[in-house]
């Protein structure tokens, strides 16, 4: 099946990216999203779980139970979630290449050390 891209809202994309390393509970997702976005995206629990609900309904993430931490609900990427994230990243990678070719992406914003 052909992978489709650029269909995810920014928050949903950020959550999938945060879960790409390992499964995480809500607060860990929020922290990882802050780190991944250099502090630009700071989610509240309301925004986080509204997106998680949608991602869950789309079968992009699933809940995982942790016996050693029963108070918290953990989430992980599904295979479909990994594919969707990969397709999104391919789209953005291609966009960055085009942006540089067309000199839209300025040097100072494209060379994070």
């Amino acid at each position, binding site marked *: 099946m052909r992978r489709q891209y650029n269909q995810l809202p920014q928050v949903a994309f950020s959550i999938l990216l945060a879960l790409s390393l390992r499964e995480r509970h809500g607060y860990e997702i929020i922290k990882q999203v802050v780190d991944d976005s250099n502090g630009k995206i700071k989610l509240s629990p309301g925004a986080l779980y509204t997106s998680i609900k949608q991602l869950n309904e789309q079968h992009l993430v699933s809940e995982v139970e942790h016996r050693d931490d029963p108070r918290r609900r953990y989430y992980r990427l599904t295979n479909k979630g990994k594919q969707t994230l990969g397709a999104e990243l391919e789209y953005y990678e291609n966009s960055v290449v085009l942006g540089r070719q067309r000199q839209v992406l300025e040097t100072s914003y494209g060379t*994070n050390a």
Partner: protein
Amino acid sequence: MGRMPSSIGMYAKLVELYPKSYRQRYGQPMIQTFDDMLEAEQSKTGRLLIWARVLRDLPGSALKEHLTNGKGVAMSRNLKIVLVSVAAALLLANGMSYWFGILHARQAVGIERVSTTQLADAMKKDGFYSHYGNAALLFKGQVVAVKQQNNVTIATFKTHSTYLLECQFSNLKLVIGDVISVVAPGGSANRLGNGVLLHDCVRG
């Protein structure tokens, strides 16, 4: 650092604005996440900023859940409460974000007054400014370039260094030539190829 148990109780009450089916599944994780956020935040003003973020986002997400799940008369009362809350909370949260943002910067571990050139040179030399991350920075500078996208402004400040010094502001209009005092909260810089971008800056 301890936190007020009443915060959790108040948040639990706000979670009741969500539809019942949503609460049954996500209510407890939301409260647990909010508890984790408060527990990790060391300062009182930092916790107030968390509250501001919650109050800004909660009415919209609660309303969205009501509209996507919504049917029947039973939820109409909650929906009215949510609608009224939207306007009140947005006003309150926007004000809190702005004022507590400034307060947070001023009450950080320390606040250090530096010049734009000192800052640029120190960052060039050290990779990052040596005290950045422990102290908020206060400097005065002239805006030499501005980029505006939605409500985010990125201003470049004049220095005598070759190193670029840029600051990101929310809800602040600037034009080239403006001379302003800037407070940059500690620990939020993005290293650039030939400069640094300071996030979450506010006018001092």
